[in-house]
């Protein structure tokens, strides 16, 4: 009787009718659920939905399937969502292999046992990578958990035509005095000397990284980010003293611009120099070939002669194997292929420019801007990954970002800001 009544009533009610249709949807939803397998096919988590990198990832997958006959499914996720959700992703039902970043960001998850040790893969194809890449791929236990695929350098970017008009040669900016003179010259021309942005909280970290490495050296920088040195150290104050000297030459709306806003200042010829990662060359290329050909990069100038220009931020992107995946052995074979020269060649077959991390890539096919990136990179002895990849994620985002923004608002309060940063580091829970 109950069934009869309820069925009858539900049918009669307009609104509940729609909801009943939802009941049919339930049946569909259950059909979508559950499709994990334990052998053979490999799933590959790709942290991008941008057109070019998607095509490159797909090229690797296709080439691997063509070579081995093993089916690989690529799951594409937008990079910010992927990154924010990575901890849950790795603890839950991750893809067997996934794209990630080197350095501390990798170690953080390796230490929690969420990544698979792939030292044996390094034994096989390790000779295709430079030693600095191996260091960046090594977890705190000395094993490798990561294989690098591509990189980009952080440096001073400018437009060649603009500098030629003004009569400046940025290649000659070797030390701090040269830099200040060039900025003064640009200011005299009514231009913004150094286009800057920090609305996102992370953009200015690149400038801090390079100033700290130039003034205090690679070791101090790494130790500071690992918590072995104090933010209240006079050495850090020295960094901010130099940074403050750059402020008069920056655009006044640093905190209102995201990185691409600062890039527009360069693109629109309103600014002379732009300290950023070279990835934005793709935007120039999208605008026009002419704009791209006009773009150039030089290393950030020397400040302390003891350290010269020996350090560079050059974040490495690559691939790792998830411990909670369902096919570790298959995933290891796949990442070996993806990072090796075969994977690089598969990516190059798409015709999209790639500065790969693989030593065997033929760099003679690079365009001039890529070659210059390589030259800038070549000058450096030490490679750092970028502040938010080199320190604890719960420190970089919630503490360093807002602190730098606060400093931009009031540079004179540097002492109290640094004290607050140190006390927030000290208050972090142990890992």
């Amino acid at each position, binding site marked *: 009787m109950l069934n009869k*009544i309820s069925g009858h009533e539900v049918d009669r009610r307009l609104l509940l009718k729609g909801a009943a249709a939802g009941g049919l949807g339930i049946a569909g939803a259950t059909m979508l*659920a559950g*499709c994990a397998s334990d052998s053979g096919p490999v799933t590959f988590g790709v942290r991008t939905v941008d057109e070019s990198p998607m095509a490159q990832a797909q090229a690797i997958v296709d080439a691997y399937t063509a070579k081995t006959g093993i089916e690989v499914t690529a799951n594409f996720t937008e990079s910010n969502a992927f990154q924010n*959700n990575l901890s849950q992703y790795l603890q839950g039902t991750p893809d067997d292999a996934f794209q990630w970043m080197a350095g501390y960001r990798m170690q953080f998850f390796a230490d929690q046992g969420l990544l698979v040790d792939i030292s044996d893969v390094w034994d096989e194809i390790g000779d295709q990578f430079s030693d600095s890449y191996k260091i960046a791929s090594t977890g705190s236990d000395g094993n490798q958990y990561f294989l690098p695929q591509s990189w980009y350098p952080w440096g001073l970017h400018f437009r060649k035509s603009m500098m030629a008009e003004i009569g400046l040669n940025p290649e000659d900016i070797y030390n701090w005095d040269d830099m200040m003179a060039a900025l003064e010259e640009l200011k005299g021309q009514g231009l913004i000397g150094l286009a800057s942005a920090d609305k996102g909280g992370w953009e200015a970290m690149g400038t801090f990284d390079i100033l700290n490495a130039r003034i205090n050296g690679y070791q101090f920088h790494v130790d500071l980010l690992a918590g072995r040195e104090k933010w209240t150290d006079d050495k850090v104050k020295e960094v901010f003293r130099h940074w403050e000297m750059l402020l008069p030459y920056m655009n006044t709306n640093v905190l209102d611009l995201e990185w691409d806003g600062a890039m*527009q200042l360069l693109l629109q010829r309103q600014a002379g120099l732009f300290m950023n990662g070279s990835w934005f060359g793709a935007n120039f290329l999208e605008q026009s070939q002419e704009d791209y050909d006009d773009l150039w990069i030089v290393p950030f100038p020397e400040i302390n002669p003891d350290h010269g220009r020996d350090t560079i931020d050059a974040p490495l992107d690559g691939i790792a194997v998830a411990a909670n995946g369902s096919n570790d052995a298959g995933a290891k074979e796949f990442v070996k292929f993806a990072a090796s020269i075969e994977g690089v060649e598969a990516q190059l077959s798409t015709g999209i420019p790639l500065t790969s991390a693989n030593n065997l890539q033929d760099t003679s096919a690079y365009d001039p801007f890529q070659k210059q990136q390589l030259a800038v990179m070549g000058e450096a002895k030490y490679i750092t990954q970028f502040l938010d990849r080199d320190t604890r994620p719960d420190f970089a985002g919630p503490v360093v970002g807002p602190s730098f923004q606060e400093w931009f608002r009031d540079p004179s309060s540097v002492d109290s800001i640094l004290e607050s940063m140190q006390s927030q580091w000290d208050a972090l829970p142990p890992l």
Partner: protein
Amino acid sequence: MTTTVKVPELPKRTKKLYAQDIKDRFISIFIGIFAVVWVFPIVWTLWSSLRPYSEIRAGGVFSPPQELGVFNYASAIDRMELPTYFTNTVLITLPAVFLILLLGSLIAFVVTRYSFKFNVAMLLLFTAGNLLPPQLVFIPVFKLYLLLGDLVGDRRFLYDNHWGVILIHVAFQMGFATFVLSSYMKTIPKEISESAMVDGASVFTHYFRVMLPLLRPPLASLGVLMITWIYNDFFWALVLMSTDNKRPITSALGRLTGEFVTDYNLLAAGAMIAALPTLIVFFVLRKQFVGGLTLGSTKG
């Protein structure tokens, strides 16, 4: 006295009207300002969505337009994989709303129509659950889902599964639904229930044949509200699913932002598309929507 009645009435009335007129005009201006403030972002989004990003990059947001068109919409539909993600939204929203209304009305029915010792405590319990911020409980929920998955031998039993997201929406929204429906039920005369019981109706007959028909207006309003809320959810689908192409339309918007480069004009077009269904629901069921605003405000 007669003179005052006869002659000066006209000027008096116009004077009064004049005062009222100023007042009206003042209010109109005031409302107008607010209307502009509210409409501006939408109009600006619409305007942005019609312009190419390359133009903004070269000239800034205030540059005069050289090219206007719906090209952003075409590429947004393409890049968002609209059919896949929209289907996901439907698969999550409809069962969730159905279950919320069914279970919410059942609980409300029991706690308001039957007096037993814990009925007020139960109502409080369900309502209090509504106050917990999702950000606070998502880690335990996530762990619980994995644990249950491990128990049945398939980690995707609830995690990374539409059912998991549906259930969490039901759990979170049911408190509100129960609260609203019980407030409404209190306004329905007790005599109706009493006569049903005297006529020998069982609890279920009482619910399905007597109460449910009377609950049509609040169920409609609540249904509309719930559809819009669950449709707009991004958080739960993000943390309780690992496969992006199982997620709803709100996360498809993320597909329009790059790792570094965000084409805001394309994003604006995507936002307009994603907002469209809620707008349609609103205009079609406006009456229920407005009814929903004051739902349960008179009692409880």
